[in-house]
């Protein structure tokens, strides 16, 4: 019918072959990503949409959900009688972050700086420091529960039985006192992630070109100078990476609170996600829990956007 097609001998020649080959590429490409697409739709997009819908409803998972518009969100923010722990749980999470972040940024940096000098046994120390990272959170919780036990715990035994230390510190029921429970959980968290942060710092340190140090050395700089003027500026992207991923991760802290304190004593360790968990699985307020998920998502998106905006993506910034 079409004269152009019939009149063109090229189309049946090498051009058609190329075209066929091109389409075969397309098909291969789509086949390779097909599982990802299915996975993405079923376990990311659709569930997110479902829970967005449910966040506008009141729903106890047994009866049918009733549409309440934005009421869940408004109530969480304003109705402290119905949802007394919303703001406190955010504040507790923030306090936890303010405690854990300085520890988990500075101590690993110090250790990475030491490991990056010519100390012997670097591999040994790296491995030793990383062991807590690969230990199940539940086993860590069990371990700390035992160590912190007021009567039989190693920590109090150490305090009791060591002269001088027992003058400086007193024994406590560490996880049962509002004053100490959250700080202790923060130290535990930092302990668990220390090895990972060291490795990231080491990677950052190894990426700094040696010439920078050599020329500084020629100029007569001492080690404090090189740390302040070369190492730290060059590590800026690494520090920000750890800061931002740490913030995002610590906003979701749950396991240790759930396992060790259950949010207590006196709700002093009730983190945001633990509170979310309680609303969903203890009070059966699915609508509220879905709203809380979206509030958490917004917080994390804001952190991520601030990250893109203010964090130097390259060292030259």
């Amino acid at each position, binding site marked *: 019918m079409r004269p152009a097609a019939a009149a063109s001998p090229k189309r049946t020649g090498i051009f058609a072959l190329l075209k066929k080959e091109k389409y075969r590429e397309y098909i291969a490409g789509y086949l390779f990503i097909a599982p990802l697409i299915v996975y993405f739709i079923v*376990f990311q997009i659709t569930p997110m949409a479902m829970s967005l819908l449910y966040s506008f409803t009141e729903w106890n998972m047994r009866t049918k959900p009733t549409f309440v518009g934005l009421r869940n969100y408004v109530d969480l923010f304003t109705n402290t009688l119905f949802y007394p722990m919303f703001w406190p749980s955010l504040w507790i999470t923030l306090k936890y972050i303010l405690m854990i972040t300085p520890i988990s940024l500075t101590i690993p940096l110090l250790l990475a700086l030491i490991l990056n000098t010519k100390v012997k046994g670097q591999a040994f120390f790296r*491995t030793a420091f990383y062991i807590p990272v690969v230990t199940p959170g*539940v086993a860590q919780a*069990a*371990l700390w529960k035992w160590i912190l036990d007021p*009567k039989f715990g190693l920590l109090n035994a150490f305090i009791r039985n060591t002269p001088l230390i027992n003058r400086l510190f007193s024994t406590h029921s560490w996880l049962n006192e509002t004053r100490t429970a959250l700080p202790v959980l923060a130290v535990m968290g930092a302990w668990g992630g220390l090895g990972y942060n060291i*490795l990231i710092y080491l990677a950052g340190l190894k990426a700094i070109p040696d010439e920078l140090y050599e020329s500084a050395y020629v100029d007569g700089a001492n080690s404090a100078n090189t740390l302040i003027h070369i190492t730290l500026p060059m590590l800026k992207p690494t520090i920000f990476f750890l800061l931002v991923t740490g913030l995002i991760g610590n906003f979701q802290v749950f396991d240790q609170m759930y396992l060790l304190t259950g949010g207590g004593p006196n709700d002093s360790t009730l983190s945001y996600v633990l509170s979310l968990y309680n609303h969903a699985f203890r009070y059966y307020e699915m609508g509220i829990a879905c709203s809380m*998920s979206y509030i958490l998502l917004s917080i*994390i998106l804001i952190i991520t956007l601030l990250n893109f905006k203010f964090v130097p993506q390259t060292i030259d910034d």
Partner: protein
Amino acid sequence: MGYSRVRRHVNRFLLYFVLIVTTVVMVGPFVWLVLSSLKEKQDMYSIHPTPFARRKDTGRIYVTFENYTEAFDFLDFPLLAKNTLIVAIINTSVNLLLNSMAGYAFARINFPGRDKIFKIMLMSLMVPATVLLIPNLLMVKTLGMYNTKSALIFPFVMSVYNVFMMRQFFMGVPASLEEAARVDGAGRFRTFFQIVLPLVRPAVVTQGVFTFLWNYNNFLWPLVALIDKKNYTLALGLGSLVTVGNTRYHVLIASSVVVALPLIVLFLIFQRYIVEGIMAGSLKG
């Protein structure tokens, strides 16, 4: 001259001192855990604990496994281990296959819409796991997987983050190798499985170990997705012991050794890959 040498020695000493103290703080608790698990109850609940317990009458150091026997009465470890291994092994192998296929397609195959799809996937990385907790639970209920092992498997058969990582690794493979294979008449599938995939073995091993660790350790998801004890994983079984508020430490401690030790051993075997994998990954990222 003598002075600076002394100072160097003092510096060295301080560095090693810090490293050794840190090692004790990081590893010491585990050593203490294992040592305590080998004591008899009365020595375990002592106010003046010593690393090794001695018999009262003979003064000899002893080792007992009775805490472990009791732990096995409390938790059905063979069942828990079986469940954990089924979930972790299926998830790890399927992840490795599907993530690397998708990563390869994004890195090397040209097809319309590729970069757009990739960007959408990248955006989804901002959604953290906890936010997906309830949405995924709703989905799992809709699909009828609630309270089954499938609930621990299907939501985790892929990982967008790992697809992204695999793409980075595939971009580093020289294109000339693939071209040579294609001139010889190999299709995309053969090129992928026989030429390209073996070249990124370190990435595959790292990702495999991490996926396995993650599945083994996962706690929050099984906690909400399972009711029946017959589907419990090791983490969940141990978790139920930690939370009851009891202080039957002899059971708790022996159980946590049973749960933690295999993973630590696995790490020690693969630690070279893991360490290099993290360091390479962070440099690229």
